[in-house]
Structure formats: structure tokens, C-alpha cells
């Protein structure tokens, strides 16, 4: 009976009216394995996870745990059956302290503390309110809570997405250790590097169906991408076009000097030229959030200056930044979109923002600009009446299309490709390069280091609230960036040293 799977789901389907979110998914997880669940956005991963964790009921299908059918009617029932999830968004109650959160879910405190320590958060105070903790810590706490319930099968949904590299490595170590005891982990991620490092097998979903189960071996990435997309894709890199030297003559588009804001951004200076895509690379919480917020006019810097086209500016409101042609695309789509409104209204929103455009809409002009932006980003407009009906990738495109339509000269992109599918990612890379070729400039923060060489002209590395290095794109590979992001000097020999103690 060694081959009896811990979890055996087959023929699982979920319909919302006529919309099939999941048609025929199957997933078999053996004891002691880390099993990747993969698929492009809209393939049905989240739906399957929700079914397995009792958040929603399937319309059809059979789910066996250790060979037995167990009821999964609610999150509590799923937990009793031995399935414990860690969702993408933190699941602690924001207004309760950690101790009360543990009490609410009946989590034993001692193992929880041990796991938290093992995951690399040494100084947690159980009396802290969840809302006062940073996102990365909350995710670690979610994981620790799941681990201390000793589940048979743990589901990790984009577990490492919001984590700084050092915590992500700890997580991977812990997960590896966990499966040695005969338990299993279902691991959902868009990052092949992690999957290659961690997983034993992968189940690939496409359009709500399981299209294949593969062993993770070197070179399997292409095969998986092929299965996810349903067609062969060429692995061409969008080569960073060598920047035209003449284009950057005159004052820089954006010039930042000694900028400090909040408690994390200490002292950042850099210039962004016209026609340039500058990458910003940093571990979680090094001040990059504050940097982008300050440049977007969302928060006021406490020190330092910002100059646009050589003229010093002070932003009191995002409207001021927009008036200078600087637009901000947040990483979290729900921060940027009007979910109940149409694609068109979402894209046209900046047109109405200023007081003088409160009057009658210029319907014809608006329609032209919006259609052009939709066309350019190839947004799937079949469900355009409400943005919330679009897939994640298409939603992200809408947030960018808005500023294409508004013809912003500078776009601040904060991790725009987090958690979206490969195809959409590639489209976004191409678009950003096109914008740069037109003389626009882009500041691009990314948590996926391999993107830097695909998109950027150079990489500005921020560590501890300061710029520690600026790497030309030729040498900005993942290894070099990782070293720099940990604050290590460029010259020193091979990479990455032990992550422990790297955070300040």
C-alpha cells in the first residue's frame, strides 16, 4: 500500500451558473512529496484549492483522503480531514492579537512558537495585533499556524510570493523537512526556480482540466509551460534594447536626491532618463514601497528632493504627480481597479479626475483612446461589463492600459507581474520596452529577479533604505542581483552566501 495517495481527487468540477471554473480536475498526492499545482491564470488552481480546503463545494467529483471520502463542507471540516491551507492573502484576524488568533483556531501555542522561530522570525510578541505586523511576517505566521496543526496535506498558495528572499529560503527548507515525516505539501507557484528546487512532481491545469502530471527533472520547465499554454512557445528573451545615447540628452526625466520617507526609506538618490526602463531590486521591506509611494504622491517624503525634467517638485496628492505625467501602477490589483465598473470606465478614470473635467464627458475622444489602449494591451473584453469578471492577468493589463490611454510619460510599476501567467507577463515586458522606445520612462520594481534582464536597462539595488548598487543590465543576472540585494559588494567571489543574518 505504499502507493496509496494521501489525497486523491478526481473528476472535480465547479460551475457558477453556466461558467465552469473547473471542469475535470484531478490531483493525486503521495505521502512524503511536495507536489506542484500549476496552470496559467484562469486555469482553475484557486478554485481547486478552495474546494480542497472547504471554502466552496464542488459541483461534481470525488475526493478521497487516505482512501476515504471525508466531508469538506467548511474550512473547519477540511482541517479535521487533515487538509490545511495557507492562502495567498493573510488569514489572521487583523484586529485580534496573535494569541487570540491562535485561540480562535484552536492552535497549540508551543509548537506555533517553535515553528515561527524555525521560519526565521525570532522576536514575535504574541500580544501584537495582526494588523500591526508586516505582510511577510503575517504570511510566515499563517504557515507556522498551519504547520502546528500537523496536517496530512498542506496547501501553500503562492507562499513565497510576498516574502523576501531570506524568508523564502527558510520556508523552502522547512517545507522540505516537513515532507520527510511522511506528510505532503501541495505547492502553488509561478516560480520555476522554486518548483525545481522543491517539488517532486507537478500537476498541470489548463482551462479547468488536468492536462498532465510530470516528474520534476531538469529541463522540465519548457514541457510544463507548453502544457499550461496548450501550444509551444519560443523561449525568446526580450532583449533590453541598448539605450539610445541621444535620447537621454537634456535633464533627466526624474531626479531623486537623498529621499527619505517613513521609517524604512533612508536616503535614496538616482536618475531616470527618458526612454529608460530602470529596475528597482530589493528584498522585502527595504523601503521600496515608500519610494514608490513618495514618487507617486501618496506619501510625503521627510527629507530629500524630487525633480521632474530638472524642475524641483513637491507632491501632496497623487494628482500632483499625475499632472507631471507620473503614474503609479500598484502591485495589488484590488488597489487600482473599480471592480464593479466596466473596463472602459476603469481605463478612462484619470480623464475625469481634474476639477475642470467634471463636466460633460468627451465621449468620442474617450472611446478612441480607450479602444486604442485595449487594442494595444490585447485585453480580453468578453466580460468587460465588470472588471471583477476578468482574469487576474487581464485585470493587471487594465491597470496599465489606464496610463497608456492617459499617455503618462513616466510609469512606476510595482511588481506588476506578481501572480499572473507567463503569457501575460511576456506581453507586459514587450509593452514596457515599446514604451521606452517611444521615449517614455519606466521605474520597475520586481520581486522576480530574472525579469530584470528581460525588461530593464539597468538595476538600482536598494538595501536598508539606501541605494547600494546600480548594475548595468549585462551583468544583472539573478546571482549578481541576489548578492547586491543582500548588501554584499559586487567584486566578492561566488554567490549567495548563507542568508542568515543578512537582514539588518
Amino acid at each position, binding site marked *: 500500500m505504499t502507493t496509496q495517495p494521501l489525497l486523491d481527487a478526481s473528476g472535480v468540477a465547479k460551475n*457558477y*451558473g*453556466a*461558467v*465552469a*471554473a473547473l471542469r475535470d480536475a484531478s490531483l493525486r498526492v503521495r505521502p512524503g512529496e511536495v507536489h506542484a499545482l500549476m496552470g496559467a*491564470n*484562469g*486555469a*482553475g*488552481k*484557486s*478554485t481547486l484549492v478552495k474546494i480542497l480546503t472547504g471554502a466552496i463545494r464542488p459541483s461534481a467529483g470525488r475526493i478521497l483522503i487516505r482512501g476515504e471520502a471525508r466531508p469538506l463542507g467548511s474550512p473547519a471540516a477540511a482541517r479535521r480531514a487533515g487538509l490545511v491551507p495557507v492562502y495567498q492573502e493573510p488569514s489572521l484576524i487583523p484586529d485580534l492579537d496573535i494569541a487570540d488568533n491562535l485561540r480562535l483556531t484552536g492552535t497549540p501555542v508551543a509548537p506555533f512558537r517553535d515553528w515561527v522561530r524555525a521560519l526565521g522570525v525570532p522576536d514575535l510578541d504574541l500580544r501584537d495585533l495582526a494588523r500591526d505586523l508586516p505582510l511577510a511576517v503575517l504570511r510566515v505566521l499563517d504557515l507556522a499556524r498551519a504547520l502546528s496543526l500537523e496536517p496530512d496535506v498542506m496547501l501553500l498558495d503562492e507562499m513565497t510570493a510576498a516574502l523576501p528572499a531570506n524568508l523564502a529560503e527558510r520556508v523552502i527548507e522547512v517545507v522540505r523537512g516537513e515532507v520527510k515525516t511522511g506528510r505532503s505539501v501541495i505547492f502553488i507557484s509561478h516560480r520555476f526556480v522554486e518548483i525545481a528546487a522543491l517539488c517532486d512532481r507537478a500537476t498541470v491545469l489548463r*482551462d*479547468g482540466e488536468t492536462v498532465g502530471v510530470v516528474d520534476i527533472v531538469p529541463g522540465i520547465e519548457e514541457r510544463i509551460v507548453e502544457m499550461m499554454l496548450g501550444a509551444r512557445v519560443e523561449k525568446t528573451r526580450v532583449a533590453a534594447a541598448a539605450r539610445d545615447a541621444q535620447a537621454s540628452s537634456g535633464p533627466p526625466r526624474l531626479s531623486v536626491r537623498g529621499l527619505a520617507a517613513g521609517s524604512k526609506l533612508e536616503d535614496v538618490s538616482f536618475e531616470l532618463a527618458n526612454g529608460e526602463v530602470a529596475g528597482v531590486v530589493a528584498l522585502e521591506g527595504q523601503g521600496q514601497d515608500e519610494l514608490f509611494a513618495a514618487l*507617486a504622491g*501618496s506619501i510625503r517624503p521627510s527629507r530629500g528632493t524630487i525633480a521632474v525634467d530638472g524642475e524641483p517638485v513637491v507632491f501632496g*496628492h*497623487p*494628482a500632483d504627480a*499625475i*499632472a507631471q505625467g507620473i503614474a*503609479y501602477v*500598484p502591485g495589488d490589483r*484590488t*488597489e*487600482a*481597479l*473599480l*471592480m*464593479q*465598473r466596466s473596463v472602459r*470606465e476603469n481605463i*478612462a*478614470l*484619470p*480623464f*475625469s*479626475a*481634474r*476639477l475642470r*473635467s*467634471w*463636466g*460633460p*464627458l468627451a*465621449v468620442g475622444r474617450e472611446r478612441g483612446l480607450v479602444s486604442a489602449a485595449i487594442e494595444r494591451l490585447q485585453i480580453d473584453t*468578453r*466580460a468587460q461589463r465588470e472588471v*471583477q*469578471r*476578468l*482574469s*487576474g492577468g487581464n*485585470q493587471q493589463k487594465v491597470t496599465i492600459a*489606464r496610463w497608456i490611454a492617459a499617455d503618462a510619460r513616466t510609469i512606476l510599476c510595482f511588481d506588476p507581474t506578481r501572480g499572473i501567467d507567463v503569457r501575460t507577463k511576456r506581453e507586459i515586458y514587450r509593452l514596457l520596452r515599446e514604451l521606452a522606445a517611444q521615449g517614455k520612462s519606466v521605474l520597475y520594481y520586481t520581486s522576480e529577479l530574472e525579469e530584470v534582464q528581460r525588461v530593464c536597462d539597468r538595476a538600482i539595488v536598494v538595501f536598508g533604505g539606501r541605494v547600494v548598487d546600480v548594475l548595468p543590465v549585462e551583468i544583472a543576472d539573478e546571482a549578481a542581483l541576489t548578492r547586491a540585494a543582500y548588501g554584499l559588494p559586487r567584486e566578492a567571489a561566488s554567490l549567495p552566501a548563507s542568508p542568515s543574518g543578512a537582514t539588518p
Partner: protein
Amino acid sequence: MTDTATLDRPAPLGRRIRRFMSDQPLVPLIVLLVILVGVLEFLRPGIVNERWIANTVKFAIPLAMLAACQTMTMLTGGIDLSVSTVATMAAFFMAAQSVALDPVSAGAIALLPALLIGIANGIGVGVFRVHPLIMTLGTSLVGIGCLQVYQRTVIASGARVPDGLTWLGTGLTGGVPNALLLFIPVAAFVILMLRFTGFGRLLYAVGDNERAARLSGVQYWRVILALYVLSALIAGITGLLYLGLIRTPSLSLADPLMLPSVAAAVIGGTSIFGGRGGYAGTIVGALILTVLTTLLRLLQLPEGARLILFGAIVLLVTAAYLRLVDDR
């Protein structure tokens, strides 16, 4: 659900009906209105005639106008509970000032408290970020206090309802209520404003996702201030019209319209959480509530039973409407 894949298979009938209702939210409302009128005619044959219709419209208009205030504020995720007080104040000031002044100056003075309350609401909600429910309840309380103090002046000097208002409020021309002269422009203004102006867009945007609106350069407080001033002015004008209809100023003149105005907007399909809805539905909602009131009066129910039924129907209609419109 972000992970959905639409299929091209034909939808079942029930779902197609629902889709249709969702795209045409006015249809179920109008059907309900017709049913109610039908029931009325069935219970008292012959009651539904030209005069009755004119009368119903006449009484539905002030309600629909106050409900315009609720619709607009609800679109931003707010609510304006000060509308009945504002309307009453406008009416009261009008009646008192008309003794000595010409109707136009009296009207201008009468709208002054409306303007002040609107500004106060707008600043409280837009700048200080007080919950609209609290802010408007608070200004409403202050307004009532002022009214009570002011009432003494009126007792001393008497009150008068200008003939023009009476004509507008109660008069019929060729069987058509004169009040439509005021209402049609107001309604057209609100509907067009919501659909075809930048300001209308911003109301939806701010109600749907304030942060997203901010990142797009929208200055929240300006939108909210303008909104609550507009809401208060419409409420004030409604008060003047209502004075012409009722013809006796009292301290609780427009109170009976307060809660129905919220109900009319909700029945009309405007989401109380913001971002979704429109004024056309609200107008039908106001008509439905007016017909319903007639129906209940006709059944000679005791006051208490009437209230119970009224509440139950509001609840049922809203729930049914949600089922019809919500695809999920």
C-alpha cells in the same frame, strides 16, 4: 472568483432571464409596479383613473427627489439622513419669510440652511472622514434644534405659503401635475449627470474603490463636498415643493419621507455599499412605494399593521431584486 473560464454553451433559461434582468434592471421594477397597480384596481375597481395617476405622481415626486439625494450619496458608499430635516427647514423658512418678502428672495433665504448643512456634511465626510450616517444624523439633529428655536419667530409673525408653490405642488394642468415642471428637469439633470459627466463618473469611482480613485488623481474631498452640497440643495428644493403640496409648515413636515427615500433608492437597485446603481430605478422605486402606501391605506389596516407590511415588503423586494440582479 478570478479563476473562471466562460463557456460558449447556451445558458439555461433561468439564467438567461437573470442576465436579461441584470442588463435591464428597470424591467422587474416596472413589472412590480404594474402588478401593484393591478392589485389596486382588482381590490377597488375603477380607482385607477387619470386623477388617481396624477395624484400618485404628485405624491411620488417629492419622495423621488429626496431619493435622488440618497441615490447619489449611496453611489459613493454614503447616505444622507439629513435630507428630511433640510427639506423641512427650507419649507419652514420659506413659509416664514414669505410673509414679508417676495417668493424669490424668500426662496433664496430658505435654501441657505440647506447650503450650510450640505457644506457641513461635505466637510465632515470628505475632509474629516466621519461616517456619513453619523455626520448627517448629527447635522440633522443640529438642524432640528435650530428649527425649534426659529419656530418661535414664526409663531410671532405667522406663516404663508406662496401661491406659486401651491400651484406647483398641488396644481394640475390638463390633468398633468405641475410638479413635473420641476421634477423632469431635476430628474434629467441627475440621470445625465450620473451617466455623462466626469463628476458622475467620479461618484461611482469613489464609491467603488476610493484608493484606486485616489491613485488616478481623484481628490476625494472635492467630490464629496460637491456631492453633499448638491444633495442638500436638491433636498431644500424638495422641501419647497413639498410645502406647496402639504400647505401647512410643521416641524416634522418631511420626516415621513426620510426612511422611504432610502427605501426607494435601495428598491431601485442602487447598492448601499457604493459603485453600482442609477437614478432611473430610484424613480420607479419611489412610484412603487407611493402605490404601496395607497394600497395599504385602502386595505384599512391599522397603522401598526401597515408599518409591518411596509417594512416586510421593502425587505422582500430588495432581497428578490438582489437575487435577480446578482449573477453570483
